[in-house]
């Protein structure tokens, strides 16, 4: 039988329907489609896909289990390497990882590995009542700072090896960026809760409302009997552009906008936490977070949503799939434009006018691409006298974050680089004995899966460290 040159399409909600609801965009493969897609895998000898996976899932093995209709076995293969398969199957940039290495991809479209992973995880969550077995305790205590992807992965791996693991989370809910950052329509929150529950049944303890660096310090964790600590505290303070008008009412960081909608559920009909809804919205930036913010704004009821990005489509750092989804939903991409000022309402005759201080527009300047910079990306250059005003009521700034200072400021001898990221070795070891770190706290804003990879690496190093201590 000839190989189907194309991946089986992911069934999605219709763009114009989904643009107005918070339900998940992608609906997932059926069993039949999953088996048919699995059969596209040619089981090549050198298995390049595995090396493309930051947590080295045995991809050909789980795909062959799908071919045989043994979905639970497929899940068991994945869970040997990944603590969060239902999450990764949804948010990993497979096109630049496993799927980019796929042998089939040389001639055709690669195997839809991400879609298959998601199928297997969802099948397991729907059909399996089996709780994972707790490993026999080895008596060693490890503390994990932060319950985002790196922390949960590190916790899961250590718990599977018998460690007594406690995760400390600053917010009131576990999941980190998976719950406050990534929106419901891309990653439904019950899926995150389910993955967290799986970790709990492995014996992982989760302490919410504890801010490490404030409520407790790293040193106090050692005093409490923890023998090793993993810091996965995530990205920190949002960056702003430093242009006039960024403190006007209606200007949000993407972190704040997404946290209000996702974690605090401002999207509900009668929320307790407010958010500005409707009107015209400009999102500044071109990453995945910018796409999430733009699509969230649309679902909250915006009449018009713009992405304002200073480079062109080719340089847009967001995943292609997210960009395509955004375009389908009607997000207007204002490329090669750079904001220079956010404009606000000001009634000179009435300082008490309630509209005073709210955003009325954003002044932008047109850009063109010049010479490549040191990273090879063509540098955007302003076109003189090309300023124009975009008529908007809300501006969401999504241009990255700077590391959170809380742990650095309260932990002696913890080395950080000049951007404030924690300095680690290849194994994730920091400048302090027994203290490991990974994820955005080390690298600055990156992907869920790279954070998971770092959590996994650190778990292995912590295991070796404590075994040899």
């Amino acid at each position, binding site marked *: 039988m000839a190989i189907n040159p194309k991946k089986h399409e992911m069934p999605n909600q219709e763009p114009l329907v989904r643009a107005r609801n918070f339900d998940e965009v992608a609906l997932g493969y059926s069993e039949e489609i999953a088996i048919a897609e699995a059969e596209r895998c040619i089981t090549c000898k050198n298995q390049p896909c595995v090396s493309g996976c930051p947590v080295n899932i045995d991809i050909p093995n789980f795909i062959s289990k799908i071919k045989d209709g043994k979905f639970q076995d497929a899940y068991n293969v994945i869970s040997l390497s990944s603590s969060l398969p239902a999450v990764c199957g949804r948010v990993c940039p497979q096109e630049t990882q496993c799927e980019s290495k796929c042998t089939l991809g040389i001639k055709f479209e690669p195997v839809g590995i991400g879609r298959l992973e998601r199928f297997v995880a969802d099948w397991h969550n729907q059909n399996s009542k089996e709780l994972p077995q707790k490993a026999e305790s080895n008596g060693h205590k490890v503390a994990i700072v932060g319950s985002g992807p790196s922390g949960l992965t590190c916790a899961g791996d250590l718990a599977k090896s018998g460690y007594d693991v406690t995760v400390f989370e600053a917010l009131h809910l576990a999941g980190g960026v998976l719950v406050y950052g990534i929106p419901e329509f891309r990653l439904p929150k019950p899926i995150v809760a389910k993955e967290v529950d799986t970790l709990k049944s492995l014996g992982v303890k989760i302490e919410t409302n504890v801010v490490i660096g404030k409520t407790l310090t790293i040193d106090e964790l050692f005093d409490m009997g923890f023998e090793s600590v993993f810091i996965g505290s995530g990205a920190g*303070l949002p960056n702003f552009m430093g242009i006039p008008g960024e403190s006007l009412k209606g200007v949000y960081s993407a972190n704040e906008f997404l946290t209000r909608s996702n974690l605090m559920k401002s999207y509900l009909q009668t929320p307790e936490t407010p958010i500005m809804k409707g009107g015209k919205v400009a999102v500044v930036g071109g990453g995945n977070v910018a796409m999430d913010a733009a699509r969230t704004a649309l679902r909250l009821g915006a009449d018009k949503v713009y992405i304002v990005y200073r480079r062109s489509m080719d340089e847009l750092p967001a995943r292609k799939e997210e960009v395509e989804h955004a375009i389908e939903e009607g997000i207007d991409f204002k490329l090669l434009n750079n904001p220079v000022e956010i404009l606000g309402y000001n009634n000179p005759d009435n300082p008490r006018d309630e509209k005073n201080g709210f955003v009325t527009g954003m002044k932008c300047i047109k850009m063109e691409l010049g010479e490549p910079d040191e990273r090879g990306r063509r540098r955007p250059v302003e076109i003189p006298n090309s300023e124009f005003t975009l008529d908007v009521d809300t501006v969401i700034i999504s241009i990255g974050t700077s590391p959170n200072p809380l742990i650095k400021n309260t932990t002696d001898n913890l080395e950080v680089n000049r951007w404030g990221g924690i300095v680690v070795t290849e194994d994730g070891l920091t400048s302090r004995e027994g203290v490991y770190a990974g994820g955005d706290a080390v690298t600055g804003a990156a992907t869920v899966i790279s954070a998971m990879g770092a959590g996994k690496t650190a778990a292995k190093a912590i295991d070796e460290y404590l075994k040899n201590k």
Partner: protein
Amino acid sequence: MYKIITKKELNPTVTQMEIYAPLVANKAQPGQFIILRVDESGERIPLTVAGVNKTEGTVKIIFQIVGATTFKLNQKAEGEFIEDFVGPLGEPTHIAGLKKVCIIGGGVGCAIAMPVAEALHNAGADVTSIIGFRNKDLVILENEFNACSNRLFIMTDDGSYGTQGNVCAPLNEMLASGEHFDMIITIGPLVMMKFVVEAARPYNVPVTVSMNPIMIDGTGMCGGCRLTLNVDGKKVTKFACVDGPDFNGYEVDFDEAMSRGRMYSDFERHAYESACNLFKKGGM
């Protein structure tokens, strides 16, 4: 879940609670704050720590019933629980080395000013306290301030208690008569703090102000609490949750902070009204 150990009405709109939160109690210092959620669907609100009891593991909070969340919090009785309570957040007020200090509190801000006054008093500083309220019924913590102040001025807007006038009146008098303070620490409504700064400016007395902007996480993630400071002619963005809540009063852009504080005033008014209505109907 965090248990309400004691609850006391300080005046008809201001309530004091002690919450069992030993980890927070163990660390909290004057000037720091906590964030709480009353129930599972509730919003996160910051409240400054009004005192701690390390032996009992309790943290004292004092809040004014101004919106839906503080209204719901006030419906809770002693022995009941609130959903979340996290802290201590922010930097403590810097009091080291201060010998002579003027503490100025306005309204419920006095609840935050009091532990700072107490800490200074315990450190041997000379403390002058000026506390201001709208009227006699709203006066709180008079005895507590008396106990830790070398001098205490009580001001009311309508003269129904203490002296009629605002908190700047006694400050102006003292400064004009040549009195020197190492520091003025002021906590209260933004407009009051702005006027305190203006009163102190001609005399070059350092002023510390305590900012209480809208926050969500309180740990340096969302950026909602940002303020603009004017530092040596340059505008600098700071975050009240991790850089504050105390700032150099001469640097804070108060007008911007006041404007930002009103971002959701419409929403808050409606939420408060519907919370009250729900309660009247027996729905809560």
